[in-house]
């Protein structure tokens, strides 16, 4: 199992406060290389905030983020992205008035080298680079199953295709870690079922680790090798899907005290 491999991303004692509100409190967490792990918890538990810390959007009030053995706490977002931490957004954030292909190519920005002059004169290097980037973008769109939409504006895609496009765009960063924030939100059960296989396909073919925030328990239980549960900013449980399913603290967090009594 991928769980025994060395962690590619580690969070150590992360706390985030907004004013007086402790959105994340002393959470430690690691993502083993090439694993699929999940983060679950009730609304407002601090999951997205935790993602925002990992991707450099928020600087934690305390704690560290280690990527491949390097401390990246407080590093600016675009540098973290360039290093290989990619993400999707809970509320889709595509570049609506750019084509699907362009959306993907934006994320290749840090790999491409063409400067202003090279672009204006269309140097052979720039032309080759552009052609290859375009081919790679097409391949990624096909990989996520929306190859036909390359020339359509992102905002015109169906909801499911937009979700896929976000994944393709994130993959264009050639990441080592992919963070997916509620990727099945808005999908029907059938689409969600397909999604489980898709996650494994991404992990296996792109050789990366995936951290998933997910509300759909059937997806979480099927897809994850390990599940971490947050509640009101604190980590309350961590373990295999089977462990989590029967953990009283988790049930309590999700269903309230009465659930425990009824059980």
């Amino acid at each position: 199992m991928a769980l025994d491999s060395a962690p590619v991303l580690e969070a150590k004692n992360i706390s985030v406060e907004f004013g007086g509100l402790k959105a994340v409190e002393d959470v430690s967490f690691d993502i083993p290389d090439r694993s699929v792990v999940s983060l679950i918890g009730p609304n407002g538990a601090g999951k997205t905030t935790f993602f925002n810390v990992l991707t450099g959007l928020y600087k934690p009030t305390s704690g560290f983020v280690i990527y491949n053995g390097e401390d990246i706490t407080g590093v600016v977002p675009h540098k973290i992205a360039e290093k290989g931490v990619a993400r999707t957004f809970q509320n889709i954030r595509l570049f609506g008035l750019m084509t699907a292909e362009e959306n993907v190519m934006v994320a290749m920005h840090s790999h491409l080298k063409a400067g202003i002059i090279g672009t204006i004169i269309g140097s052979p290097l720039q032309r080759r680079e552009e052609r290859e980037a375009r081919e790679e973008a097409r391949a990624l769109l096909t990989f996520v199953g929306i190859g036909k939409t390359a020339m359509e504006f992102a905002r015109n895609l169906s909801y499911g295709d937009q979700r896929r496009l976000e994944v393709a765009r994130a993959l264009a960063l050639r990441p080592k870690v992919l963070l997916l924030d509620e990727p099945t939100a808005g999908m029907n059960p059938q689409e969600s079922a397909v999604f489980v296989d898709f996650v494994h396909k991404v992990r296996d073919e792109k050789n990366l680790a995936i951290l998933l925030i997910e509300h759909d328990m059937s997806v979480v239980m099927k897809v994850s090798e390990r599940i971490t549960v947050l509640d009101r900013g604190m980590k309350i449980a961590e373990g295999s899907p089977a462990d989590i399913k029967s953990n009283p603290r988790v049930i309590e967090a999700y269903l309230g005290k009465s659930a425990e009594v009824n059980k």
Partner: protein
Amino acid sequence: MSIITRKKGASKKKAPASQRTWSIGFLTLAVAVYIFYTYIVPHTPDGFQNQIQTWFPPSALNEALVWVIAALGLNIVVGYAGLLDLGFVAFWAIGGYTAGWFMSGFFYQINLHFGSESAKSFPGIHLSFWIVLLLGALICAFFGILIGAPTLRLKSDYLAIVTLGFGEIIPQVFVNGENIHGFNLSNGTKGISPVDNIGLFGKRLGPFDLNYKYMIFVFMAGLMVFISLRLRSGRLGRAWLAIREDELAASMMGVPLMKTKLSAYAVGAISGGLAGVAYATHVNGIFAERFQFSISIILLAMVVLGGMGNVWGVMVGALLIAWVNSTGLPALGNEINSTFNTNINFPSYTFLIFGGLLILMMLFRREGILPESRLKMVLHENDDDVENEAPHRNISEEEAL
């Protein structure tokens, strides 16, 4: 190439003409206009020649081309990168003074001639027009970065206000720059004049060689179009648009925000500088009090009216507004005054008319005359005649992330 295919995907209904068609159209029209003024007009009856002088004088055409050059630069900042800049006149002024410093007898203490067709005995710095263009571009790029570095961190509304400030400060520096601790930077309100004539293939262009200047300005405008289109379709252009669309998402996809915004600002500044140099040779001098806030606003109106993000739209907008401003309105005013025996000062209503025009545009055609196809889609997405499969977003609308 990419642009053409992209346009195809843009609107299925009326495929907009490709960039190549537009480029060919632009060149053909430019040549036709040249032939018209140089070879046809002189052979027409006096009455017709007078009409041309009243309604479409060649000097107004040249001036309009200068506006096109500047507007295309502002389009990169506002139309591509989505950064509202209300102080673009600053670069126009800096470009103008670059011409004043390096193409005139202003620094009479120095006698430096290089590539200029002006007489060697003239004191002052006299560099070739083409070198001065390059200098103007470099100096403006430098100031663009200097001004941009501290301000581009600001959110858009604040950026607009700060750029507005710089647009006021820099011309004021020139107005009051007659004696900076004993150094005369700008000759104050007296301005710098005359500026050397442009040398072209060993020929010295006089103030009346309008057709040669026309060719040079067309070339410069064409160059700006080319640069805009090339950049737009490449790595940097994508990053600009991504920032315009969603800054946060762009940064999460590895786009360095500051650097990318600065590059848009610098390229814009460069074209402002080119326009400044061109304008100085057009009016044969630099006059401090001409660099007013209104220039920034007119340029912005050209970009918005023409169609933000589309170079051809911006060009049409710039030509149109520049013509109304310099010729159309005064000529129409005279016509009306003489017909109805009135005495209305029409040019004094310029801004009222521009304001009215902008309001009308915002009400009925927000995307501009020749919109970027992608913009048109947003602004008309609720119209019945445009089919679109709007994404059914059923996600929680709580937070932006």
